[in-house]
């Protein structure tokens, strides 16, 4: 079962590289933001799998919960920010 988790983690790391293309290349700022959101969601799964590999799943689950809440708050805050006047001048 450990080898299966290791294979899944390596596969997921390869999958994370795919939205990174959109993050670098994206024509508008919204494309980049949606790519950041996608990478954050996949990283959440990767942290849980790494917790199983290290045998410390009780600690890594709490890190995953904090990461999920931080990613959600960050995404909402950036979506609010780019509609304000200051964000319009930045974008």
């Amino acid at each position, binding site marked *: *079962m450990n080898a*299966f988790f290791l294979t*899944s983690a390596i*596969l*997921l790391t390869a*999958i994370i590289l*795919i*939205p990174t*293309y*959109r993050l670098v290349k994206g024509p*508008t700022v*919204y*494309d980049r*933001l*949606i*790519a950041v*959101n*996608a990478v954050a*969601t*996949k990283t*959440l*799964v990767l942290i*849980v799998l790494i917790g*199983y590999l290290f045998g410390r*799943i*009780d600690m890594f*689950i*709490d890190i*995953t*919960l904090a990461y*999920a*809440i931080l*990613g*959600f708050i960050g*995404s*909402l805050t*950036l*979506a*609010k920010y*780019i*509609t304000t006047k200051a964000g*319009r001048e930045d*974008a």
Partner: protein
Amino acid sequence: MDIQNLLSMLFVMAGMVFILAGSIGVVRLPDFYSRTHAISKSDTLGVMLVIAGLIIHEGWNLNSAKLALIVLLVALANPIGSHALGHAAWLMGLKPRKKGEGG
């Protein structure tokens, strides 16, 4: 290899397929709104399936309860975040691509 581990591996592999499909969609689709469509739905389902497989592997204890909390959080937070970004793009005047236009 008992039935619990087999079911867990099946769920994790199904979730990986959905995550891969969403990642390919965010690169291949031509428009911001269609990319939002690819990410918000298939990615949410993929993450929920992978963590459900890990819950089956874990059994009945505190860790599986916390994993179920993560599933609930992802099911609520990921569509809300994608919708907020799409709404912000619409308010800023980004037009969706119509049929027959280039791009």
